[in-house]
């Protein structure tokens, strides 16, 4: 059945469809391809060995052995409440986890985040003790810490825009700021 013994070391991106046996699936991650905007409707005919049937069987097995947990489905349905067209979205502009190189030997480096909505930025530092942040340009604000559709804590930013919270956010979190008649919500993140 599997004939192509000659195909040792077939590259991952090779269009050749032989059954490469060179351990190609044990390599590192493929580079991020440039052609990700391909049309993507990659329907194809399955060969005589019935790979399409096998894939369907796998799909069935996943539905039985590893389905989306019901409670997660419910949470996703409820997340519709987070859809708020009136609030300005403060997008993540800096995340130390992604944009900074790790500090050697410092495992407890705080997570530094910067969110930006137009001219307003919100800096947040998440530590084991809680969170510290500042709204810039400096301005007072009422701040809700969200852990889902419902607020989990309320904070206040002083005249200099500074705020502190004594509970570190766990899991998904966002901040909803009310300042000078407008509402700004930071992009959801997991910390």
């Amino acid at each position, binding site marked *: *059945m*599997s004939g192509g013994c000659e195909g040792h070391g077939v590259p*991952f*991106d090779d*269009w050749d*469809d032989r*059954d*490469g046996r060179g351990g*190609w*699936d*044990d*390599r590192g991650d*493929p580079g991020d*391809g440039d052609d*990700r905007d*391909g*049309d*993507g*409707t*990659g329907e194809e005919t399955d*060969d005589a*060995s*019935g*790979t399409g049937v*096998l*894939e369907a*069987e*796998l*799909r*069935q*097995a*996943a*539905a*039985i*052995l*590893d*389905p*989306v*947990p019901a409670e*997660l*489905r419910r*949470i*996703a*349905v409820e*997340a*519709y409440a*987070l*859809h708020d067209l009136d609030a300005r*979205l403060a997008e993540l502009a800096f995340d130390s*986890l*992604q944009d900074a190189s*790790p500090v050697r030997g410092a*495992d407890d480096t705080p997570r530094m985040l910067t969110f930006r909505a137009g001219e307003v930025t919100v800096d947040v530092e998440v530590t084991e003790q809680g969170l510290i942040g500042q709204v810039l340009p400096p301005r007072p604000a009422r701040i809700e810490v969200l852990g*889902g559709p419902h607020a989990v804590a309320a904070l206040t930013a002083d005249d200099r825009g500074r705020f502190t919270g004594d509970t570190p956010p766990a*899991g*998904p979190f966002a901040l909803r700021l009310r300042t000078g008649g407008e509402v700004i*919500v930071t*992009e*959801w993140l*997991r910390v």
Partner: protein
Amino acid sequence: MDRADVGALVQSAVDGDAAAWKALVEGLSPLVWSVVRAHRLSEADAHEVYQTVWFRFAQHLGRIREPDKAGAWLASTARNECLKVLRTLRRLTPTADPAVLDRVSEDRTPEESLLDSEEAAAHGERVRRLWQEFEKLGDRCRRLLRVLMASPPPSYQEVSAALGIAVGSIGPTRQRCLRRLRARLDTREVL
């Protein structure tokens, strides 16, 4: 999920139709879950990433530039969050190798016990064996097949967004991986 349908549902959800949002969750949460599972996070991390992705989707609902590609948006958001989790783990436990990370997610879901019921035993045995052989595949095959197993089947564009691989490489790799899995199953049957 059909792209035209997804685009229309996103538009309806933006306009306030909660049923449309629910349909999006039903249609696309298996894809999000598959992406998370493909990255083999711990149970707790998997749940948090899944939630973060849906919270952020709700937040971005009216701002998504190509609503018919919402599936790809969800898949790539899920991938990014998974990579952040893996980066944190690597930072906190410098010695962690992939094998250690793999072990974290080895607890199977309680649904597996469903298969123990007598009427499902015969079919269950086959499904279990298929799953076992699937789990023994190399990383790349396991990851790709886990994403392809989403129900309804994802488009190649969604798969590309989920794994950061070129659309053109998906078809050939899929064929190889499924043939490889088929070969493993055949070998076991002969023994």
